[in-house]
């Protein structure tokens, strides 16, 4: 016996549901330039990029005039919740139904790798800013991916070398258990061993772990000199706090392999003074950065991180390229961006290489002691500048199949 009566009404209901909720195919963008931004809006990376990063993109659109090449510019923002499948699905939907012309990748390497694949499939420009994994320009390089701000190779070459030179020869890694953490650990291990150091062991923690105590005890057992924190954002903050709580800092020195100014702010100078870190930008670097950062500060009551500055710069450069070519076609715009030098508040003399890396200066910084800090957010001394290609993967090291 059929339950078909139910099926009749069922199908009508299904139909209604489908119509009500299914997104429709949009026209591929003719009149509007759409920039899509997918990042962690509410999780452990929300401060270093997050909603303020979206605002930075909007600031760039406003500074470019709001209209470019006769077309309006629109910004779409979504939260990937640190889930690569959510990021990939959203990117795909935006490309298919919303006519998004350019995708900006926020924090979390796993999600950026997923988005890069989708962008490559759909042949649209993808600028990864918040993610660190060097895989984006090596094993997973693509003609449509630009890795704009920083990567794990630069972090390793910067901080790794500095710490070993300062005497930290034996290392133990506390690693975030996903693409970023493992890549950072791999890259830093290479640098440490090349500099004559030794890695005694490592332990992985789940992303956004709440309790680091058992991992830290394992680190302490290794008797290494340096505890390398291959994690970021909230995880780094909590690791440092717990390390202090359990007296780890009495026997080991902490090396924060990826730290942003927001993390230092959270932890305070007392807990972080003397720590080395590598970053692509500092708000207090020169007069131009200071002026722009004050504008940002007025909106958010905190200084911009290097990622947020990167969001701004990438958007500005993209819109400039659209203006120059008069088109929002990804191939044309990308070719134009590769021809143009990048000179703005973020980078001077930056340029996009064939493997997708945006080559620019990186800085080795050291956290000031509390007595040396003259104003809120004045946290760093710039110790060394890695000019041009110094910090990045070289052609002999690269694993990118198309960059020879």
């Amino acid at each position, binding site marked *: 016996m059929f339950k078909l009566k139910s099926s009749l009404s069922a199908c009508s209901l299904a139909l209604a549901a489908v119509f009500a909720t299914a997104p429709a195919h949009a026209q591929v963008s003719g009149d509007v330039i759409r920039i899509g931004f997918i990042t962690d809006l509410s999780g452990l990376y*929300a401060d270093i990029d997050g909603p303020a990063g979206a605002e930075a993109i909007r600031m760039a659109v406003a500074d470019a005039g709001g209209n470019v090449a006769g077309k309006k510019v629109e910004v779409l923002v979504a939260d990937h919740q640190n889930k690569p499948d959510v990021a990939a699905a959203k990117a795909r939907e935006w490309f298919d139904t919303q006519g998004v012309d350019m995708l900006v990748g926020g924090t979390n390497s796993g999600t950026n790798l997923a988005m890069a694949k989708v962008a490559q499939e759909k042949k649209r420009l993808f600028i990864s800013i918040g993610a660190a994994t060097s895989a984006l320009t090596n094993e997973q390089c693509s003609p449509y991916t630009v890795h704009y701000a920083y990567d794990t190779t630069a972090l390793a070459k910067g901080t790794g070398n500095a710490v070993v030179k300062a005497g930290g020869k034996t290392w133990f890694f506390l690693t975030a258990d996903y693409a970023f953490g493992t890549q950072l650990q791999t890259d830093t291990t290479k640098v440490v061993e090349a500099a004559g150091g030794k890695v005694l062991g490592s332990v992985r923690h789940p992303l956004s772990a709440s309790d680091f105590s*058992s991992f830290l*005890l394992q680190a302490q*057992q290794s008797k290494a000199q340096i505890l390398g924190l291959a994690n970021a954002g*909230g995880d780094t903050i909590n690791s440092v706090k717990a390390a202090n709580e359990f*007296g780890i800092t009495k026997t080991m020195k902490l090396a924060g392999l990826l730290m942003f100014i927001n993390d230092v702010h959270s932890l305070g100078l007392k807990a972080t003074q003397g720590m080395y870190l590598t970053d692509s930008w500092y708000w207090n670097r020169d007069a131009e950065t200071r002026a722009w950062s004050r504008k940002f500060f007025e909106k958010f009551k905190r200084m911009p991180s290097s990622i947020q500055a990167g969001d701004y710069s990438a958007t500005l450069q993209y819109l400039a390229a659209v203006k120059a070519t008069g088109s929002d076609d990804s191939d044309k715009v990308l070719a134009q961006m590769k021809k143009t030098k990048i000179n703005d508040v973020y980078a001077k003399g930056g340029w996009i290489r064939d493997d997708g890396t945006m080559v620019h200066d990186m800085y080795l910084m050291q956290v000031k002691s509390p007595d040396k800090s003259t104003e809120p957010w004045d946290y760093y001394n710039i110790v060394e500048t890695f000019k041009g290609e110094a910090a990045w993967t070289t052609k002999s090291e690269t694993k990118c199949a198309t960059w020879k």
Partner: protein
Amino acid sequence: MQVFLSQLMLGLVNGSFYAMLSLGLAVIFGLLGIVNFAHGALYMLGAYAAYIGLERFGINYWVALVVAPIVIGALGVVIERLFLRHLYKIDPIYGLLLTFGLALIAEGVLRYSFGVSGQTYEKPELLSGATDLGFMVLPDYRAWVVVASLVVCLGTWFLIERTRLGATLRAGTENPALVQAFGINVPLMVTLTYAGGAGLAALAGVLAAPVIQVTPLMGSSLIIIVFAVVVIGGMGSILGSIITGLALGLVEGLTKVFYPEASSIVVFVIMAIVLMVRPAGLFGKEA
């Protein structure tokens, strides 16, 4: 040896939380027959009650230890009266599904209000030191957690299994009509029992707040493990859940020494084994 002892120590701390939470679950299931999937959410709400109490009202930790369970207990009264009351006569699956829905609501609202990454709740002054035990440095606060949970757990067990009130409670849920005939207000008792379980969860939340981040997800990550503890201990047995909770914390700590990656599954492996060998759980009453 050092490694062994220090991980065991940490395991004991975790075990205390397992014991307290599974105790509340066992009380509610054993006495009311409700599989309270909202237990993790109540725990999380207790932690947030303490956090909000501190930030908005200046209520310090020690006061929060008393206030938060009362507030969340009151919430428990509301939940029981409004929703659970209707579900006693039908399949217990519905109780599970309803409380599951309530947990999602609580988590969603808190996520919206506070984001996912969590808030810091500072330890009280009195307990912010640490003692060097030789094999590790143990923060005083964690020692306090162990002591406090043991006291609460044993106190609750005593109340339910050894006092007149507890006996009335147990009788009332086994045979409500008869007990009601004696003039005892059974529905009120049932409501208060649920509220009591909720209060216990909230207390665990306040105790946990300074140790882990206060985040809306703290309940959902713990609830599955706590269920496993209750199933291993025997779903109706109060003493069973206390002992199993502590034991499991220790076993987890041990696993971290030899095979850290497996520490998260060891609970379930044990549960699978127990279910095959002694389906009612180690201390369970069901045949």
